[in-house]
């Protein structure tokens, strides 16, 4: 549905500053724009000076764009192929109905449809751009993991052989619903990928709490096996005297070991 809204009555909200990443469209490569964007899609401008989201007033800086193909998006976004969304243009007035391009955008409003903020736009061979974006997306995943590996004090592959309550007191005590309920896990290391563990076994703290603040953290049990990215001062304010695993990515499947080696330059 191509629903175009008239400019709203004075009650409508004035848009704030553009969230444009400061990336110059003319000077930015597909790789740079892909990294700066959360949603990348090939699309066709349907209407300029238009909006199809109630809370976004139409003006020279907005356009309604049909999403022809999604090239990068979080999995949880859903499939917007074929749907029309509102784009806040990086440059007001810089759009023409019928224009086809690859749009690099950041998320803004999620309502009956989406409103996104353009950080860049590229024209050219669709297949080529698709490949470039795809390659950057794939590389970004590696880059993200590479960063996490670099921040880890230890990266080891091994199996948990013991878990027990931790004799540690942190600022957030048992009287908070966000009490992490610290336990320790002991890993029998079979492969050291980064760092120098003191021995064949390493120990780390993890929150057993199912509270919203901590539930994502790995909850190892005896026998849990994988690649452990163990941090010091993962959340410095906790003041924990040892290694921690507080995020889902602190545990990787054993099958990723070659990838990890590659990213560590081994």
């Amino acid at each position, binding site marked *: 549905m191509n629903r175009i809204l008239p400019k709203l009555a004075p009650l409508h909200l004035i848009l704030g500053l553009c969230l444009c990443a400061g990336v110059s469209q003319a000077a930015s490569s597909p790789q740079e724009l892909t990294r700066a964007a*959360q949603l990348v899609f090939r699309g066709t401008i349907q209407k300029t000076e238009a909006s199809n989201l109630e809370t976004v007033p139409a003006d020279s800086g907005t356009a309604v764009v049909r999403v022809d193909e999604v090239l990068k998006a979080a999995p949880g976004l859903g499939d917007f192929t074929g749907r029309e969304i509102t784009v806040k243009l990086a440059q007001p007035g810089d759009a023409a109905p019928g224009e086809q391009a690859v749009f690099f955008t950041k998320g803004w409003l999620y*309502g009956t449809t989406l409103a996104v903020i353009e950080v860049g736009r590229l024209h050219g061979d669709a297949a080529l751009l698709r490949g470039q974006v795809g390659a950057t997306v794939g590389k970004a995943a590696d880059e993200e993991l590479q960063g996490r590996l670099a921040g880890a004090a230890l990266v080891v592959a091994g199996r948990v052989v013991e878990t027990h309550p931790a004799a540690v007191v942190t600022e957030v005590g048992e*009287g908070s*619903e966000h009490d992490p309920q610290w336990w320790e896990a002991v890993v029998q290391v079979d492969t050291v990928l980064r760092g120098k563990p003191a021995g064949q076994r390493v120990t780390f703290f993890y929150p057993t709490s199912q509270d919203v603040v901590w539930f994502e953290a790995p909850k190892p049990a005896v026998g849990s096996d994988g690649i452990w990215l163990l941090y010091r001062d993962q959340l410095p304010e906790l003041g924990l005297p040892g290694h921690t695993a507080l995020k889902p990515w602190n545990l990787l499947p054993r099958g990723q070991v070659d990838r990890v080696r590659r990213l560590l330059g081994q």
Partner: protein
Amino acid sequence: MSRIHQRIAKLLSVLTLSAFTVAAQAQVKIVNMIPNSRSGETQQDSEPNLAVNPANPQQIAGSAFTPDPLGGPNAPIYVSVNGGDLWVLNSILPGNSAVSGTGDLTLRFGGTSNNLYAGDLRGGAGLRLNILRTANFAAPGLMTVLVDRNNVDQPYVQATTVPGGGPDRVYVGNNDFGAVGGRTATVDVSLDGLLAAPPPPSNFVARRIETRATSGQDGPPIRPAFHSDGTIYAVFYGWRAFTGTMATTDLVVVRDDNWAAGATQFAALIDPGDALAGRRVMTNLQVPWNNSSQPGFGQERFVGSNISIAVDPRTSSRVYVAWADYPGGVPPYTLHVRRSEDRGATWSAADLITIASATNPALAVDVDGRVGFLYQQVTGAAPQRWETHLRRSSDLGVNWSDLLLAQPPANAPVHTFIPYIGDYVHLMALGRVFYGIFSANNTPNLANFPQGVTYQRNANFTTQTLLNTDNVTPVAVSIDPFFFRVCGAFVPTIVSFTQTGASNVSFLKCPAGQKVLSGGCSDDFTSTSLMSTRPWNDDGWICEFKTQPGSLTSWALCESAVDTACRGVTNVRNTISTGTTVSVACPAASQVIGGGCSDDFTSTNLRTSMPSGNGWSCQFVTNPGSLSAYAFCATPASGATVQTVSLTQTASNVAFIKCPAGKRVLGGGCQDVLGSTLLESTYPWANDGWICNFQSVTGNLNVYAICE
């Protein structure tokens, strides 16, 4: 009434007194807040909070454990700009957890500043308190971080503006583990929220409100409340002992009489037992602690976070508190409400209301002193249900009505994390409207929503299936936030203006911030006739008479903009070019509350201006080319009925009628049944009746009053 007594030669001879009641389906709007573009989401969007902009109640912000849909670095709030009918997500909170967005999160608008304040535990950052502000909650751009401090729990924001153009005052209750000596109950105060500027703590000051020894800390919830006269209350659990599974606690209320702006803060309420600041409303409460999902309690946990406080806007001396405990240390988890009439010094000896097997109490008081009590109760067995109730009392908590807002299953979905539906909900009042938010199982089953519900996300209520953005693919049931709004009965402000100048037109406007519901006109017994009695835009009334003998009065029955908006007050008009009788009907689902007639400047006289069916009807003497009828229409209020009463006057040219006891007049009309005389006056009689004055006695003159 002396003039009427002079004019009336005989006692009224009542031939007929009739009344009809419009069926009053409660006016309750419940909206599932998940936007349509998020139809595929299956997050556990629990622990909701709500903020309605007092300066513009169409602007509403909401929160829940909702992450950024694109996995970006910032977490979203829910935004509505049309009073809660439609919602969008806007990611303006720094920090984002991929599953919950943030940790604890609450929101509040300033009183008149249009600024939105938030207090949260930053997403992905443990117990890192942020207090934030934005001037435009629907625009892109991060909220400004005003406070940034670690090891703090449950920030709960209240904000207002000092009347008379004063600054925003912001009060954020929180449990600060960094406080000395385990006296962790804290209220972060800003005496000028708009001037608060980074770096943190900007101009916020952490005020410690626990004056007694604790067992190592106070309980998680610290809830502030304000009154426009500068009285600030806060309530908290003062933990005196903690076994790991049970907290022995006082329920403590503190008070400040000057915005917490003085040399000492929150020290105005002294406990007579120990002469320390902070009145111990209850002592030795047994509050269970079990920080895991409880199968017998609808998968929710016990973490002692369930207290609430609300002040009567009419008097800061009257304050209500609610709390939860195991009475005498014995299950079930039970909610209690009590009241103070003397600024917290003494409290009702017994509960005003007690609810077993319930959690998440939330209190609010409207402009008429009607107290609202929102809570969620586990009922039944295998499967249990989470019932969300809104109770209301118009008599200080003696009697309570009950609106069941939702009753979905409590055993599905299986929890992803805790809290399952939340450690709190929120209720607030603006005008006579109660606004609130709760989280619940989102199965699209109308049986789960006895008051009705609106879904933005795709849903098939026949198959009781959620559907993805393609409107085909089924989506698993999850927990969603639900906004609701309950309208109250009108209590019109009646204003008048007397024209003594040369003009034959008398007109007036409603007080600022109010809209017109209906109006009237009086020739003040000067024996001129009426040509028009009609609305002037949406906030005034105009009367046009044939001549100006010396005194002509116009009347307007007005109501606050927030209350008229809640009930969707509309003004419909019908114009005819031929014929002397013109009528107009209200839209379906609304009912007539008032009306008017206009000769459209054609200088003909009015005989009849009356409610007719579910609309309005006007009869004129002639039709010189254009005649109009107006009807004011509103949707029903919750717990009130619109009733039209009428009386036939046979012996006088003046007819008048009173509303049934306890009801107020919203509008009224007059009918020259025989079409043989002229209407001179049609206007309200005090706040509960209507008067008609015709040119002559015909033996058949009707007066109507529309009452609620």
